[in-house]
């Protein structure tokens, strides 16, 4: 494979000599940079196949590497240049798993803004494809648990259980997962917002409706926190939902 990606050249393989003399001729400046060849023979072609076979990943092969997605991406532009959707697609199609793994620390950072998908001239569902890449890596144990995945699972479990989401439980449940000591009432085991060891900003924000005597707001949210809103007739449907998710291995890892 011709390496046309600068980032596939590891720093160890770039040799630069200060002075280079060949056959008595000083060639420094022209010939003093040598890149050692790299042989890659562990392509995993099944990886791309698995992606193509999923309904949300099948557009991956339409990509012609124009990089419009990367140019649009706010995570690439405003956070970390190593986050590069075009490159991830390239690596996934080639099946260069170890190169993907090297980027595992940034790959989860996609905020699902869909600028990439919107602008891709080839009709690749870029955001979906990136998530399928991550999902496939997770399925094969190639990537460790990352924060957004923890949150996604936490969220989905709440949907599965109740059919609905409740902001308070989501927020405080997540804070608790971050290692804060959230105080809960002894009977229903629901978090009490104003005491306990929560971040300062959260404390201040929860105090706001109290300070402004916004009684209606407080009562509504307290009620929802104590008695989680539920979808009626949910049980039979929940069963099917759980089955489908288990089939996909969604809850396992």
């Amino acid at each position, binding site marked *: 494979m011709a390496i046309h990606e600068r980032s596939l050249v590891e720093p160890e393989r770039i040799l630069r000599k200060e002075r280079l003399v060949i056959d008595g001729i000083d060639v420094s400046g022209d010939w003093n940079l040598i890149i050692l060849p790299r042989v890659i023979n562990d392509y995993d072609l099944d990886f791309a196949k698995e992606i193509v076979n999923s309904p949300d990943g099948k557009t991956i092969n339409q990509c012609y590497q124009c990089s419009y997605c990367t140019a649009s991406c706010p995570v690439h532009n405003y956070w970390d240049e190593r986050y590069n959707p075009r490159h991830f697609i390239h690596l996934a199609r080639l099946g260069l798993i170890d190169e993907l793994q090297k980027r595992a620390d940034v790959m989860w950072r996609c905020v*699902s803004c869909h600028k990439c998908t*919107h602008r891709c001239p080839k009709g690749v569902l870029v955001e979906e494809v990136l998530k399928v890449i991550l999902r496939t890596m997770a399925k094969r144990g190639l990537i460790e648990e990352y924060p957004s995945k923890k949150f996604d699972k936490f969220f989905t479990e709440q*949907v599965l259980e109740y059919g609905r989401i409740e902001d308070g439980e989501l927020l405080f449940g997540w804070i608790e997962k971050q290692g804060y000591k959230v105080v809960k009432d002894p009977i229903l085991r629901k978090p009490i917002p104003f005491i306990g060891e929560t971040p300062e*900003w959260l404390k201040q*924000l929860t105090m706001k*409706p109290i300070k402004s005597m916004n009684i209606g707001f407080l009562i509504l949210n307290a009620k929802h926190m104590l008695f989680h809103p539920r979808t009626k007739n949910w049980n039979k449907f929940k069963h099917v939902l759980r089955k489908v998710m288990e089939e996909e291995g*969604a809850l396992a890892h």
Partner: protein
Amino acid sequence: MGVIGKRVAYYPGCSLEGAARAYDVSTRIVARELGLELDYLEDYNCCGAMESKNVTFMGTMLLNARNMSLARKQGHDVIVAPCNGCSFSLQRAEYFLETDKSVFERVNALLREGGVDPLDKIPHTYHILEWFYHEAGPQKVKEKTKRPLRGLKVANYYGCLYTRPHFYARTYAHAGGQDEDARPRKRDTADDDEHPYYMNALLEAAGATSVNFEPMHTQCCGGPHSLSDEMVSEKFVMMILQTAKRNGADIIATECPLCHASLEMYRHRLMMKGVPDVDVPAAYFTQLLGLAFGYSANDVKLKDNLSDPLPVLKRLGLA
């Protein structure tokens, strides 16, 4: 005008029945004033938002198909959602159900198994802003305005998923793609994809002035990562708030409860850190329209906004 229908299924989404009740209340007020009718979708479930889709594909199809089925049961072809996340999820399901036959069949079989009516027809989902614009429009807003938002400089924040991606939101006719059926078609009523202006138009009709807010009007607020990736979200929100402030905005108008919550939460955190130019408060565009239609600050639940837009509105004599 008038291509969506005056009476539609209303999918509020979980958020609007809890922390974002101000959006729900003010939306109902505005709809009533504009002569439109929202038919509450009974017993709906969560759309899975931007989170569940990363864990399970079929699961999110099912979650949304169940809601579509409920809408069909109530006799509707059109669902309207006030949240970017909800309208995105429903439109995404619509896209896959329409373009992938195997998904459609599987979903219908599973719906039946779960005791829900299978889909005879796939209802279309619109964002509530698009619906307001097309079924009522700026003219109607102008007629209804009793207390113009004179002097109020608004930064109209649309967020990501209102017009994006065009595959789901159908905001842009695209020639690419190998599969003829999967090619996106533009919807007649769709807002401009890169430069949305419906909210500008409605609020301007109510007397407000829009400030230049490009390109941050469609910049991400951190979205599904606003709790799980705090550093990135904080930076994104900082860019949004500072752009608004430095372009002279008094207030940011929002049209999504998640964007709104994210802006308010990080606004507070940024202010605690002493970051300059981030103190612009946020209000739902329906709250501002409600005020213009003569409702009080209490009616549109302005107190619920944690960023406290009341002082600014009071100073201008609007609340």
